[in-house]
């Protein structure tokens, strides 16, 4: 298997101005991250809030430009691809299905958008393809000409998936695609992702903080912590024996519904093993605070 996506040593720091005269402060979001996603696999990125997962997704989607490092997609440097070629290879599915669909356009328009932007097909062909995908993602045809506010969150996410498939891309970058949905709908959407992967030969870069979701869908896992990938590996061995202390903490913080089992006690021992020299490390981290009772 060849690698479809290669991320080489990529870094990005956000500049934040604290005062009018003070120099901008650098907040590193992604620090020399490297990874490969092979064709046809599901690569999951896990980590707590603020660990840089979404920033990495935006970098892969070219919504942000890296400070250093490079990204290669399908053997070609991502930065040299034309917007059109890039769109044909990579498409996004976002976290919030409310923000990802334009409230003033019909579902039909939303799904057709990427193909209308790319051009090269007749309006009829474009609509036919949108209709076909509309059915493929499990939406009833009577909703085709309705507006996003008339459908549910799960249905909205199906629309977002249909839009992402409109250009028949090879790679879907899914930034927490199920975290805004309730659990039963999550399961349906995950099932849909699995089916579509088979029938369209897709590769996923799947970002999530939900380990149960990841265990089900991912072939390989990369754990991000404070902008770095601290561990990567195959899913099954990872869940059986995580190597990095942060991965162990992440796994032990999962709540499993067993009667009589108390809230997990999360050890912070690993903190000492991670180097702490960047300004980002001074900030309290939301998720770790949330782990404590």
């Amino acid at each position, binding site marked *: 298997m060849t690698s479809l996506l290669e991320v080489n040593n990529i870094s990005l720091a956000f500049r934040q101005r604290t005062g009018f005269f003070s120099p901008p402060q650098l907040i590193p979001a992604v620090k020399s991250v490297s990874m490969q996603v092979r064709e046809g696999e599901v690569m999951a990125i896990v980590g707590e809030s603020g660990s840089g997962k979404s920033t990495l997704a935006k970098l892969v989607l070219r*919504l942000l430009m890296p400070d250093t490092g490079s990204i290669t997609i399908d053997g070609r440097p991502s930065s040299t691809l034309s917007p059109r070629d890039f769109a044909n290879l990579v498409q996004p599915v976002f976290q919030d299905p409310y*923000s*990802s*669909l334009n409230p003033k356009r019909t579902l039909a328009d939303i799904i057709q958008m*990427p193909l209308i932007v790319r051009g090269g097909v007749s309006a009829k062909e474009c609509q036919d393809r949108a209709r076909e995908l509309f059915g493929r993602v499990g939406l009833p045809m009577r*909703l085709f000409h309705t507006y996003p506010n008339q459908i549910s969150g799960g249905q909205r996410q199906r629309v977002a998936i249909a839009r992402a498939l409109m250009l028949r891309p090879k790679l879907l970058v899914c930034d927490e695609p199920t975290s805004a949905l309730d659990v039963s709908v999550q399961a349906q959407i995950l099932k849909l992702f699995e089916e579509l992967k088979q029938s369209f030969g897709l590769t996923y870069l799947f970002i999530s903080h939900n380990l149960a979701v990841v265990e089900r869908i991912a072939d390989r896992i990369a754990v991000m912590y404070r902008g770095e990938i601290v561990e990567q590996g195959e899913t099954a061995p990872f869940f059986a024996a995580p190597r990095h202390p942060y991965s162990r903490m992440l796994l032990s913080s999962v709540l499993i519904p067993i009667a009589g089992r108390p809230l997990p006690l999360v050890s912070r021992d690993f903190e000492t093993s991670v180097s702490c020299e960047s300004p980002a490390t001074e900030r309290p981290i939301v998720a770790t605070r949330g782990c404590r009772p």
Partner: protein
Amino acid sequence: MEEIQSSLPAPRRLRMRRALQHGGFIFGFAILFVTIVIAIFAPFIAPHDPIAQNLGVRLLPPLWMQGGRPDYLLGTDHLGRDYLSRLIYGSRVSLIVGFSTMLIAGAIGSALGFVGGYYGGRTDDIVTYVINCRLSMPGLLVALAVISLVGGSLATIILVLGLLFWDRYAVVVRTATQQVRNADFIAAARVAGASAPWIIWNEIRPNVLHHILVIATLEMAMAILSEASLSFLGLGIRAPTPSWGLMIAEGRSFLFAKPYLVWVPGIAIFLLVLATNLLGDGLRDLSQPEGRR
């Protein structure tokens, strides 16, 4: 398209129903509509030539007052011109100034607002600076100065008002654009390879349009009033062309003897401005979300 007769009520139809229940909207719309019809068909409606003088019938009072004559329903002015005909033709000036100013100012202001709001950063700084420059100028005073230099005519009034009163469009469109800009559906369009103008026109404009419409009606009322003020001051429409502001100015010297020369055009201005304002308020109320995103 026809096989999927959506069972959900279309938002358009819902909005129509709400519009018909909105008193102010109906009132404003009705008056504006009637005025437009009168202005278009003025030559067929007006009983006399609005600029034909007949010194034999000077200063006739309206029909219902003592000495009124049925062939001069609203009486005559100091030159014996039929007041009703002048009122009817005067509506043309008010409406042309109102609509043209609205179009010119709306185009300038919205364009600035879209560009500043979408691009942000340096571009936005420049746009904000231009808006602030405009806001620091007293609008009507500048209009007075320019028109007294260039000379008053319909075209000058429209141009000067149009080039001056775009500030509210710019401010509101810029803010509204900023709110939409970071939504995920914009990111999806960018990944699909859409250009900035495409995104502004197809994704942002539908979300900002109702703001523009509301301001447009309010600004139209403002332009109508400005034209009346300028004409009243002798800087606007040149006699003998009938304009409501000019009619008030000419009737001013007879204010105590023949007050109807002032209040008849005064009521016309009042009603038209009230109607456009009510229409604007109605549009604002109708575009409120009310459970609809």
